């Protein structure tokens, strides 16, 4: 338990990070540092997008697989680390 919390705290306290969340394979958030409605929104949308990105990579080359997904927007950058069972989503506000 403390292992999980410490890791998440390390990520959250990194420079510019706005929020961190862990989502399971069905798109249901398990851990989060943001408020409820935002978390649910991010979890649902990014879960679909990650699945789509993964299938895109696999369709182009079946030997290949998705390792990391980054979305850059006007206001911040969303990073998704996918796995078989979970997704780690980190939202960072990069300094420019």
């Amino acid at each position, binding site marked *: 338990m403390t292992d*999980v919390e410490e*890791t998440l705290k390390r*990520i959250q306290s990194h*420079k510019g990070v706005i929020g961190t969340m862990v989502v399971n394979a069905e798109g249901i958030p*398990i851990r989060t540092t943001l408020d409820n409605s935002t978390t649910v929104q991010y979890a649902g949308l990014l879960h679909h997008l990650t699945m789509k990105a993964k299938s895109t990579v696999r369709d182009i080359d079946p030997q290949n697989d998705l390792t990391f997904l980054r979305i850059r927007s*006007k*206001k911040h950058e969303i990073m998704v680390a996918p*796995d078989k069972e979970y997704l780690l989503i980190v939202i960072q506000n990069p300094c*420019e």
Partner: protein
Amino acid sequence: MATRAQPGPLSQAGSAGVAAVATVGVASGPGPGRPGPLQDETLGVASVPSQWRAVQGIRGETKSCQTASIATANASAQARNHVDAQVQTEAPVPVSVQPPSQYDIPRLAAFLRRVEAVVIRELNKNWQSHAFDGFEVNWTEQQQMVSCLYTLGYPPAQAQGLHVTSISWNSTGSVVACAYGRLDHGDWSTLKSFVCAWNLDRRDLRPQQPSAVVEVPSAVLCLAFHPTQPSHVAGGLYSGEVLVWDLSRLEDPLLWRTGLTDDTHTDPVSQVLSVATDGKVLLWQGIGAGQLQLTEGFALVMQQLPRSTKLKKHPHGETEVGATAVAFSSFDPRLFILGTEGGFPLKCSLAAGEAALTRMPSSVPLRAPAQFTFSPHGGPIYSVSCSPFHRNLFLSAGTDGHVHLYSMLQAPPLTSLQLSLKYLFAVRWSPVRPLVFAAASGKGDVQLFDLQKSSQKPTVLIKQTQDESPVYCLEFNSQQTQLLAAGDAQGTVKVWQLSTEFTEQGPREAEDLDCLAAEVAT
């Protein structure tokens, strides 16, 4: 004899025949032309018609008549089967986060161990990267100019010379409602006025014919739509009443009404808050059928204003402070800013507990809401607006033609901009760009300020009226963010479409706003 009986020439045949008959009847007379003495003669029959009425008989004539032939035709009709169906949207039910105890902790820990290094590396790279410096993408078609989309007016109200006193957009952003009244009457008036609403999403929008009109017995001074119900609108009248209408009902749209004294301003939160120049701030709640009931009341009394600034006049007795404008904070629903006739904004809270020292009659105990007084303008404040992006900033505009940007943490304003030599009637923050606000002036134009570009002069100046009659109210549309509605003294509402630079947020605006707010003088 026989030779004499021969007929004469043809033209005399008849007479000869008669002569012959006559002589034959005479038989053996001596000659035709000489009747003998005392001889028998037979004359023809002479008859005299009877004059007796019965014999004459009834004269009759035969006539006949006939009606024209009747025209017939065949037609058939059939009743149709009706099926009624209704659709209703429901407010979405929020989904909640699963509690952590249900999940497999060791596997979660293993997962995090695997990805932590990757994520930290990416975060670091991102922090130091210059790859996206100056990179901007344009998704929408750029619109360079500000253009007027619609010019809406209600001819009977314009014929009476009414001004547009207040505008409001509804919660879905498709309906704009305006209130008609006069802002320059100094006394009580029983002039009838109107509240009109136009639905801009309808295809058959006619600019001179509103989709809903409500007649009101007195001039309406301010208007506000319900924040979640798209068809409820509340208005404050010159006579002091607060009325709430439901515009989706075509027959009697009036929902609730109340009686009060003096003119009012309204700003509905979920209940209706009304603010009046007699110094009272009242919170109303609709109950049941038709009555707005006072739930909480506040009174502004001069002595109870916090002495954080030096106010020039020292009050004697319990003078009331009239409030002319109200704005709720977007971050804290119990906090609101009042603009007063004396020119100083007040920070107030709905949760204030101290009782007000006033002798005004009221059904609910009045409390003193003011927590902090800011330094004044040169004249009464007509409009305040709280920033939707920063919890501490608000703007106020008044009759001295200045707009002051205040932070709630200090009394003197952060900056003060002179926008016009005449009065400023309304000021509003933009709902999308943290550094943009719009102001409506008495010279007939709407000024849009972008604090990022220039803090001294307006970025865009929109001329609303041709003859410099004042623009009294303006509102941004929070759903369709490129629309801005402004109402003027000629009774027209113009809906402006803003250029793209006012509708899309730049990358660093929120930070710039924070920097601006942080310039609090120590």
